[in-house]
């Protein structure tokens, strides 16, 4: 039973596996490029989902089958999305659904664009921070934020938060350092 469920829907399992691999990479890796790779795998799993669902059991590729001789080739079947566009042999021939494939063509293009923008950003982050590791970047940014925070002392929020020990370290003594 269970094995049956696995086997008959194996395409979904593959998709889910890929999706999880990609998502996990995206979340767990600190390197920006690896994150992009994870994102890519994640997106690819969705492409697979679309492509596999377009297939119909026993269907032929969605290319107009000419009964005899030569036809007009592949026409506009892709835009019509249509099983409806079939010729006179429609009754016998079962076509796979081409529409998901076409959709995913668009999605692939989008995916490439995302990847390239992401990589370009990664390069510029490397230039600006000297690192591509998220931990490092976060540390640098936290320091910047602390410096900003200190600048604002003397303001009401600092008066209030100065009463809490955790923030006091941030407000009172180091403020003097910032002055120096």
């Amino acid at each position, binding site marked *: 039973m269970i094995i049956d469920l696995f086997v008959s829907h194996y395409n979904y399992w593959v998709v889910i596996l890929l999706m999880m691999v990609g998502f996990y990479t995206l979340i767990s890796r600190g390197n920006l490029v690896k994150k992009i790779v994870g994102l890519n795998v994640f997106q690819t799993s969705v492409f697979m989902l679309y492509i596999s669902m377009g297939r119909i059991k026993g269907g032929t590729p969605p290319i107009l089958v000419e009964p005899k001789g030569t036809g007009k080739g592949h026409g506009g079947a892709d835009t019509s999305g249509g099983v409806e566009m079939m010729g006179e042999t429609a009754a016998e021939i079962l076509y796979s659904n081409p529409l998901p494939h076409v959709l995913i063509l668009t999605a692939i293009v*989008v995916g490439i664009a*995302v990847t390239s923008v992401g990589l370009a950003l990664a390069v510029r982050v490397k230039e600006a921070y000297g690192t591509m590791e998220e931990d490092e970047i976060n540390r640098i940014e936290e320091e910047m934020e602390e410096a900003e925070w200190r600048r604002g002392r003397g*303001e009401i929020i600092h008066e209030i938060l100065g009463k809490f020990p955790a923030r006091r370290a941030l407000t009172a003594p180091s403020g003097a350092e910032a002055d120096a």
Partner: protein
Amino acid sequence: MSDHLPVLQVLAPLLAAPVCALLRSARAAGALAVLASWATLAVALALLGEVRAVGVVSYAIGDWVPPIGIEYRVDMVNAWVLVIVGTIASVVSPYMIASVSSEVERRRIPLFYAAYLLCLTGLLGIAVTGDVFNVFVFLEISSLSAYALIAMGTGRRALTAAFRYLVMGSVGATFIVIGIGLLYVMTGSLNMADLAVLLPEVWDSRTVKVAYGFLGVGCCLKLALFPLHLWLPNAYAFAPSAVTAFLASTATKVAVYMLLRFFLTIFGAPFSFGTMALDRVLLPLALVAIASMSMVAVLQVDVKRLLAYSSVAQIGYVVLGLSLASVTGLTATLLHLFNHALMKGALFMAMGCVVYRIGSAHIDAMAGLGRRMPWTMAAFLVGGLSLVGVPLTVGFVSKWYLILGAIERGWWPVAVVVLLASLLALVYVWRVVETAYMRPYEGDGRAVEAPPGLLLPTWVLAAASIYFGVFAKSTVATAEQAARVLMSGVGS
């Protein structure tokens, strides 16, 4: 001409974008961007007029008949959203010309305008289309250009903010594609109106519910609903000022529209509120967003980031209206889309003026600006009071409907939370106002009044946020009509 309005809505900025990219002169590119933005507003207003007259405007792209071809379908709801986006675009684009020149490298300016126009195209496209896959395509067009726009901000943190947004945005968009794919598996259609007819037959199927979940999470990522908002504060804080003003007033608004469209038009209010208990899922999230993000905003020292957190809180209001599951609640949601766009636009633009003059949005740098930059800070004050919800400002009108909706449902605690959060808004707005007006100026001579190119657009929005607070009849009527359309499912 008027037959082609829906497609013109998208075409104007789409065609202008590559031209901008090719232009060498920053000035010419800017002028083109402004023209294209004004054209979109004109088209959006014309569309709204037509929708008022005939109900629904349907346009078949390339004359392919709807369920098969791509349909652009405009009813009260998207006409309203189109007007919001068009208004903000046509006000922000003149502002860009002055603001961008100080924040973006000169040779990149034409490219900047190209990215802006593409972003605008994407946002308008999401709103105008009646085809769910088309939504995804436009979503990515707008998102990709938004990543690029944010990365053009000064300071290196703009880059990491853009990267973070890219990662979360792409995940969100991918979730939406998954949801769309599952819907297609179940119904064999991608047309919204068609889907709305076909879906009720398969409401019980688990696949539809999974699709619902994916679409929900995807949309909430894009609209930055707590706790999926992490990309937003830094993206808004470090993007160029004009971009922040533009995105803050449009991008999340369009994402909310997307959510409304998917959940209320396609799945239908009975399914969303009945089977899926959407109201009960969104209500706590919205309340937590309102309360917690307002508190976080209180603690910020960078005013742009303060406003960004306030945006997340305000999105909570918008979602809260939806979770009230009534016409009054939805009216509040749709009103707040417009009203918040006005006031947050004014606020971010005022901050842009400050950054333009003194190069910082730190609260400490605001000291004494009430006298040095009176008009700028007055605009900030107007926007801020509106954010608090002082009567005779737009913020009050939407808050009124929100509270009314909550009371109508008998949800007293909700009304109380909304009111208490307004007080938090008062605290964070007042921090800035008090610093600007009550502390002496400490900097050098740089802080003088912003140039008219920046002030004028800022004041257009600030004045609008008073005007539509005093004369709210037309906006309320439109929003209410749109809310009725949404609650009744497919617009007739």
